[in-house]
């Protein structure tokens, strides 16, 4: 217990002794962890968005303005009977316009002068998003649909579903993930080098003391203690700074991004944030300890 206090006192002393290098390693750790944290949170958000889009995979079949109610109803009943369909709804021209007004700029709607260019549509919700292709094909093959669809020359044009969007998103998120992992590895390496360097300087400044400690029989653990503590302290301070900035970003910037991109879901749970912060703190600590242990190695040969 006494030696823990001693380690702590000595590591604090190391701070004042080598302020600039200590700050250097703290800032490096801080920036590395900050960027790692941003990538983790970004990854979470993208995952959220992707799964949101996937949940919302639905088929919209646009219907011509002059389609008869009976045709629409028989088509709806046919679609309801298909495998993988959860529910079938109908959106009138007026409802479509109202939706458009809400999700987009209402000024555009005003310039339409009361005209409504939007078609009515049958909305198909799927119970199994994987079957979207199959269901879409079945609708396309339906004779009723081919006659009442909004664009009879090319029925496929009147059938919209989100599969392509989802696939493109997945490709994008995979790229982001690979770049993120590469960047994280690089950053951890840089942080290790910096900690290593800082501790080496601290050791150099005290090599006379270390020589005497070894002479009078201080155990290696005792000699190593203050330096490991110093490295860990830098890392923890860096991690706390990074967590503080991330928390700031979360409360100041994320809501703004969310309001600008309303159609995407940016809600990340508190637990996820806590987990990310914990990961950052622990990995910072590990970086600090490994970096300083590495620096100690060659100075502690008996």
């Amino acid at each position, binding site marked *: 217990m*006494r*030696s823990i206090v*001693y380690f702590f006192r000595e590591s604090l002393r190391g701070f004042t002794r080598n302020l600039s290098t200590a700050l250097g390693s703290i800032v490096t750790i801080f920036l590395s962890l900050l960027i790692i944290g941003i990538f983790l949170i970004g990854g979470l958000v993208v995952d959220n968005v992707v799964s949101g889009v996937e949940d919302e995979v639905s088929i919209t079949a646009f219907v011509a303005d002059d389609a008869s109610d009976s045709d629409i109803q028989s088509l709806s009943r046919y679609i309801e009977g298909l495998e993988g369909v959860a529910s079938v709804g109908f959106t009138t021209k007026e409802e479509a316009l109202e939706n458009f007004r809400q999700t987009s700029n209402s000024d555009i709607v005003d310039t339409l002068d009361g005209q409504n260019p939007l078609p009515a549509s049958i909305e198909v919700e799927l119970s199994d998003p994987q079957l979207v292709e199959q269901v879409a094909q079945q609708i396309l093959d339906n004779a009723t649909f081919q006659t009442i669809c909004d664009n009879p020359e090319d029925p496929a044009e009147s059938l919209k579903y989100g599969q392509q969007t989802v696939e493109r998103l997945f490709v994008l998120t995979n790229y982001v993930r690979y770049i993120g992992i590469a960047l994280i590895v690089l950053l951890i390496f840089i942080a290790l080098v910096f900690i290593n360097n800082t501790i080496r300087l601290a050791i150099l400044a005290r090599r*006379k*003391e270390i*020589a*005497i*400690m*070894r*002479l*009078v*029989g*201080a*155990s*290696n653990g*005792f*000699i190593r203690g203050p330096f490991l503590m110093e490295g860990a302290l830098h890392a923890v301070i860096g991690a706390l700074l990074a967590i503080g900035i991330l928390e700031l970003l979360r409360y100041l910037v994320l809501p703004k991004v969310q309001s600008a991109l309303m159609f995407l879901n940016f809600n990340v749970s508190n637990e996820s944030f806590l987990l990310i912060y914990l990961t950052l703190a622990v990995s910072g600590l590990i970086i600090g300890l490994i970096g300083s242990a590495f620096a100690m190695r060659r100075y502690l040969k*008996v």
Partner: protein
Amino acid sequence: MTNDMSQGPSMRPSRHGGGQLSYEQATAAAQLSQSLPVLDVDDLPQQHNIPVITFDHVTKVYPAAPNKPALSDISVEIYGGEFVFLVGHSGSGKSTFIRMLIREVKPTSGHLYVADEDLTTMRNWRVPYLRRNIGCVFQDFKLLPNKTVFENVAFALEVIGKSRHVIKTQVPEVLRLVGLQDKLNKLPDQLSGGEQQRVSIARAIVNRPPLLVCDEPTGNLDPQTSRGIMDLLERINATGTTVLVATHDREMVDSMRRRVLALDRGTLTRDQNRGVYGFDA
């Protein structure tokens, strides 16, 4: 006894040294063997015959000079309570001899025992515990310039985890022994060379090691001051501590008439009780 505890009696202060056995000395001596059953000293009539240090055909070749061994085939025994001079010219292997004792270097071949423990096979993690039982004094004092006399001596106890209480009682006591009780709060550069060497001796013996090793302790000091340091070492020896002094201070060796080991280019050329320096100037 067959285990490595059996060296215990050998570290007992020698009654031939003339000093009375105090309890502390006995404990200090026993430390080397770490908590062995305490034997009654009176039951050990021939303790002088059990060596503290044994060189058994020790050879040391540094990789930098493969054709010129620093020490070649040294066999010698040093007993508990002895005062031994190690003499020789520069480069004769004195420092290698000393550095081997605290296991800063390992023998290339042969075996070296300190208190029956074989340093050639000793595990690295045990080395600090070996060094706690060997006090070391060097020509260049090796004091920390930013610490006071008291702190310098206390440092040796601090880093082996002694309690504040032990430090507060033991440090002033040992500083009184070396005659520096009035200079506790001075910094090393406010002291003379002789006083600084006394501080480093105080640091070496504050943990009451059974063995004190000095490498040229008077190399930087004038004859008068050297005499004082030697008196101090003799007094420490009189309390039962085994003292080994490497030196090329001819006058000192000749006047003190203690056991002398002479090294010449790595070989032991002379081992003489009540010896003299012997080399031609």
